């Protein structure tokens, strides 16, 4: 009876009710669509980070805080034993998707071939190519860009790797790598005044003969670094390709090479080590247990190792998440306020129009609570209808967007990924938005409903 009455009352002023429902519906659509987008964004961002750096990384204690200054001094000794210890552990083994050693290093990359004479500091990740490819295929949410297999890196060819596009440009590799929109560096000549030129070509000839020839037409770089003991070391490195990197500093400095080459460069005649052991898990939800198990293993074997997760390694990840969360909160607050005022306005007008009716009803013996309930239910019903309409439209929008095949470039990404709204994947968002806006509508009706309930019967009856 109460609901039938409320429903009929809503229909009495069709246009006004429709406007109110519309406001609530728009609020619902905005929150749901943005929430779905945000959810998809989080998933794709998460996937991106996990594909790149795995879930957990094992370092020698202190490396995470101090090791960047001197990577070679924080190498993990006998890392193959540590790898075996983790890989053979009955608790960890079923959780792990990829377990791989990496080496971070820095040095100077030089292109001294032919007319080029350019040198530049670099930072590098030395990896096992097949493990890296496998990590880039991690896609637990179905949200990530599916990476093409790496640029022809081969586990059996330790001399090859790739560099950031900016580094390739600085080192004058544009032409040899056939990169578009990449000018060659201008020649800079600086001469010491008053010093005669001297011809050393006959002495230099011996050096020219000693240099390794090109492998399959790929440009060669000389990578220089100081070994752990401070001795200068140099290796030949063939650049397969230049890949653009999302951050300019990275683009101008980044080198990816084979683990063996990196170890040869940094550890030279010493014991080869790695700076990190990366664990990529099958499911991100296993991070906690895996981390605890690793720590327990290290404590048990007395190893001076520590575990860091990907959020600690990528502060940008957490920052971006928080940024989007605050935008969502902002939108939610605005939508809530709009719905609140619309419903307050509608109900106030309804009560003014129906003052005589309220007086009559009260005169017939309905108590104050009955009046209050009547208007609360009306507000609630406006909310339910509006939010439900919004829900349906939001789903239609999501389906439309997913069918349209839109793409976009997320922050810290280079290439576009498909834009998808995964609304169904977020039941909490749907229920939360629906219930939340209905609650706001009901609460908004409370103030006018209270005023209606407190009307004096005599005054209400005489109201014009």
């Amino acid at each position, binding site marked *: 009876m109460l609901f039938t009455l409320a429903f009929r009352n809503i229909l009495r002023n069709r246009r006004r009710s429709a406007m109110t429902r519309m406001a609530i519906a728009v609020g619902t659509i905005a929150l749901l669509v943005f929430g779905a987008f945000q959810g998809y964004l989080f998933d794709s961002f998460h996937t991106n980070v996990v594909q790149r750096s795995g879930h957990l990384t094992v370092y020698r204690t202190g490396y995470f805080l101090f090791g960047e200054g001197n990577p070679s001094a924080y190498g993990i000794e006998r890392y193959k034993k540590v790898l075996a210890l983790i890989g053979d552990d009955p608790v960890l083994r079923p959780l792990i998707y990829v377990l791989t050693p990496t080496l971070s290093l820095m040095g100077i990359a030089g292109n001294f071939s032919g007319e080029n004479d350019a040198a530049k500091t670099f930072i590098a990740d030395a990896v096992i190519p097949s493990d890296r490819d496998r990590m880039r295929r991690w896609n637990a949410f179905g949200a990530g860009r599916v990476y093409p297999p790496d640029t022809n890196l081969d586990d059996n060819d330790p001399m090859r790797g790739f560099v950031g596009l900016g580094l390739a440009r600085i080192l004058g590799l544009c032409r040899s790598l056939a990169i578009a929109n990449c000018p060659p560096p201008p020649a800079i000549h600086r001469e010491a005044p008053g010093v005669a*030129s*001297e011809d050393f070509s006959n002495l230099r000839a011996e050096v020219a003969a000693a240099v390794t020839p090109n492998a399959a037409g790929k440009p060669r770089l000389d990578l220089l670094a100081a070994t752990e003991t401070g001795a200068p070391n*140099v290796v030949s490195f063939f650049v397969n390709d230049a890949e653009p990197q999302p951050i300019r500093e990275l683009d101008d400095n980044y080198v990816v090479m084979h683990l063996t080459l990196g170890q040869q460069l940094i550890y030279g005649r010493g014991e080869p080590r790695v700076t990190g052991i990366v664990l990529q898990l099958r499911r991100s939800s296993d991070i906690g247990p895996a981390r605890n198990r690793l720590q327990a293993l290290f404590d048990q074997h007395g190893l001076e190792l520590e575990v860091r997760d990907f959020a600690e390694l990528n502060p940008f990840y957490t920052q971006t998440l928080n940024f989007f969360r605050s935008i969502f909160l902002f939108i939610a607050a605005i939508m809530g306020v709009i719905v609140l005022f619309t419903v307050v306005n509608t109900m106030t007008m309804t009560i003014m129009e129906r003052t005589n009716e309220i007086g009559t009803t009260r005169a017939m013996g309905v108590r104050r609570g009955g009046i209050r309930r009547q208007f609360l239910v009306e507000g609630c019903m406006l909310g339910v209808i509006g939010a439900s309409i919004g829900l349906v439209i939001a789903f239609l929008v999501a389906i439309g967007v997913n069918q349209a095949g839109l793409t976009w470039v997320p922050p810290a990404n280079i290439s576009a990924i498909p834009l998808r709204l995964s609304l169904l994947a977020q039941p909490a968002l749907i229920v939360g938005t629906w219930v939340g806006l209905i609650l706001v509508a009901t609460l908004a009706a409370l103030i006018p409903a209270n005023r209606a309930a407190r009307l004096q019967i005599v005054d209400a009856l005489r109201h014009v």
Partner: protein
Amino acid sequence: MFFRSGLLPALVIGFSAAAYGQTAQEIIAGTDRVRNPGQPFHSIDILTEYVSGRPKAQSHLAVYSKEDPSTRQFRNLIVYIEPPRDAGKMVLLDGHYFWFYDPASKASVRISPQQRLIGQASVADVLIVNLAVDYRGTLVGTEAIQDADRREHQCWHLDMKAADDRASYNRVEYWIEKGTFYPIKGKFYSDSGRLLKILYYKAFQDRLGGVRPTVGIIIDAVDSALVSTINFLEARFQDIPDAWFQRDYLPRLKAE
């Protein structure tokens, strides 16, 4: 700086100029005698860097060298005289540590191994390489080899391996003239086996109580366009206070 090098062990008492029947260690000791006068000395050197034969930079350096009796390593203090913008800057080479001192900021900075990979500091690394202490040599044989001026010398060919982790180079090849023990040519290899630098000595003249090389040519084998020469202009024996080789003393040092 030019002469500072490995210290010859004093075992070479029975050393004779006879060209045959030398052991590798005796040859190294003999050539160390040529490169190194065995007493503290002061010299003026000119360091010139050439790119593709064209001069890129030239510095005049005052070098103070003295042996550290405890480690038998030579310590070097290098003071820039020219160009004017570098005048007064100092580099302290103490064993395997490099310190750079700038009078403008009165601060000394440790030059890390990473920062010595290219440039003038990498040249110093070759010149101060410590043969007798840091390397163990084997005699490969005798060869006729051309010096920097394409004159042939009959040389002992020595192949030296790093004696320990502190050695800057994994392997060094050296050609030392038979009879005179003049160092003619050296080749320096990295841990990875790549050739890093080729060093020629020439213009042997009477200096500091012996016949010694006065020109060194260093060819960078990685950036093959790059050649550095060091000219040893004048030298004299001079007693040098130990304090000069202390990093903390650099701001107060007034080298004469």
